[in-house]
């Protein structure tokens, strides 16, 4: 018994050491730095207590970053999951050229984030972009719109780009789940006279409920942490209209050399992520228990 336990720890040791070095050391380092005034100009950390936290909380930009992060995260997650689910439903039908269709749908997900962002930057260009060109031709707008330069439009524009990039990920997971739904239940519901909507609501959705919840929580974590699209499209601008935690951390740390403040933003970010990870663990645990019971 004791030998077994020792063997367990021995086998776990490499992974634990790796996590400690690669994950926990930088994380605690960040927390440590957030209590110290440190920058490129004064690299020797000076203990500052909660001064950096007070400074950041008093800064108007912090409130903007929080609001933007919420709008961005929930906007992307909601749209990405709805679009992903609807696309999965469509691709779950017996369509002609299904393989080709799936490959086309997967394309945005395969593209590197920076490449996708550059592509959208071209498409959003006020003078030369495809988006304005199409909308003008369709008569939906009268004049070209500066999608990324207008504070009222910029966040919606980066959300659309991120959804385009991310929805195939959600779609893949939903498609796998849909293909595991018990067909006999769907057939029984059809025999009982249930239409497509009724079958979706009463059979399909309950059957993949756990997958939906896990997918939503997972995309919450990934989206909150997403950096590429916003940085390439707007750098958090115009003004701070699209600044979220990752872009603000990068700008403060590498753009202004203020490591202490960047670390403090990082701590707030870690706290939010900790909540989301805990949520994921709870959801995953419940799903596993349900599977065991079933």
């Amino acid at each position: 018994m004791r030998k077994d336990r020792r063997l367990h720890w021995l086998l776990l040791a490499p992974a634990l050491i790796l996590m400690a070095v690669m994950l926990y050391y930088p994380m605690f380092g960040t927390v440590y730095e957030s209590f110290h005034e440190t920058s490129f100009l004064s690299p020797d950390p000076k203990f500052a207590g909660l001064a950096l936290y007070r400074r950041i909380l008093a800064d108007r930009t912090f409130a903007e970053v929080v609001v933007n992060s919420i709008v961005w995260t929930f906007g992307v997650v909601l749209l990405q999951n709805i679009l992903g689910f609807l696309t999965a439903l469509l691709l779950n039908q017996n369509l002609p050229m299904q393989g080709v269709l799936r490959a086309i749908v997967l394309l945005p997900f395969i593209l590197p984030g920076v490449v996708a962002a550059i592509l959208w930057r071209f498409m959003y260009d006020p003078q030369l972009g495809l988006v304005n060109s199409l909308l003008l031709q369709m008569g939906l707008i009268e004049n070209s719109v500066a999608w990324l330069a207008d504070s009222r439009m910029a966040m919606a524009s980066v959300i659309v780009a991120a959804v385009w990039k991310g929805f195939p990920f959600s779609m893949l997971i939903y498609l796998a789940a849909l293909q595991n739904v018990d067909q006999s239940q769907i057939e029984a519901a059809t025999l009982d006279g249930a239409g497509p909507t009724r079958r979706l609501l009463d059979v399909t959705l309950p059957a993949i409920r756990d997958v939906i919840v896990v997918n939503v929580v997972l995309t919450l974590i990934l989206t909150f942490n997403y950096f590429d699209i916003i940085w390439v499209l707007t750098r958090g601008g115009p003004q701070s209209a699209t600044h979220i935690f990752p872009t603000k951390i990068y700008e403060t740390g590498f753009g202004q050399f203020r490591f202490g403040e960047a670390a403090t933003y990082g701590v707030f970010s870690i706290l939010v992520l900790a909540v989301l990870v805990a949520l994921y663990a709870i959801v995953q645990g419940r799903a596993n228990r349900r599977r065991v019971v079933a």
Partner: protein
Amino acid sequence: MKRSLLTAVTMGAMLLGTSSVLAQQVTLQFWDNQQTESGLSDVQKAAVERFMKENPDIKIEVTTVPYPEYQQRLLTAVQGGNAPDIATLDQIWVGAFAKAGAVADLTEQAGAAGLARDNFFGGAWDSAVLGGKLYGIPFNVDVWQFSYYNKALLDAAKIDPANLSTFDGLKAAAEKLTTNGKFGVGLFGHKGEDTVVVGDSFIFSNGGKILNDDGSCGLTEAPAVEALTYLQQLSKFAPGGILNASSGDMRELFLNGSLAIEFWPALEQPTLQKSKLDWAFVNGTAPEGKTPVGTFGGWNLAIFESSPNKDAAWKFIQFMVREDVNGDVVDLIPANKKAATAFLEKNRKDPKVIMAHLENAKARPLSPRYLELADAQIAMFQEIYAGGDPAAAAAKACEAINALD
């Protein structure tokens, strides 16, 4: 027997000699960034080979980093104690690197070697001086901005290009040229340094300052606010989306003939020379009776404090800024004035006109916290281009700038 013994002794002596040279040879790490696709790295490699031939006891290892990653790589290297021996530093970084104690004071070496301000463009030299000490040697320079214009569009609108040199003339021309889906002037206001340097040049040309002589913010002074107000008026004749537009975006429009005037440094000329456009340029713009003042851009060579081979590094810097070398290893304009003259004659249109603008250009504020200062300026420009009150935007910027210690 005797002969073979002699041969053996000779060979042994030669080997010993070779190994002693190898033992004394130092290896220098030189980091540079690549801003353009000019094939410069090949030319630079040849120059490095030449240096190593002249200095067999010094080996140079060149690392070229793409511009967008360069600052982060340098910063991480310094923080991690892995800084190179020598690197090119953007003029606006020198203050911070010097204040942080990351780069060496070169005042004495420069004095002893006879390298002085007169050998270089004054503004470029000043960008390496902090607290009276010299922390870098100017390597290459350029000036923001030249007003490049599309001759066909100006001819069609019957506009005399000389008018573009004055505030009133430029505004009138821009208004006249903004018609039928075409735009007069390419203003940009994204979060980037090109936004700052162009804005600065209008402020300088109107007699304004970014920082006063005592280090306080000068943006609320009348000349600066007037220039900002002018820029706001000018923005009506620019393509939409200024707040997310860069100089690169304006280049696209200029090249496709839908923009009449674009603001770029001399570095733009090779691109325009390859195009089919009929183009020319004037040296920026200023109020009637004043000379336009551009904003210096460029890079300095610095030696890192952590380098164990500072003497060898200094030799390499002296070589790179030499009159017969400097022009071959830069894609902007050599900072060495004599080398610049030859370089401009060979590679640029209207070299004398460019030279005059370079001689008259000003450096950006010399502040260890320049990057934060520039961020405050970008916020100000964005507010102005979004239609905010210039005086209020300048006041907000000054509040942020004066709060920097």
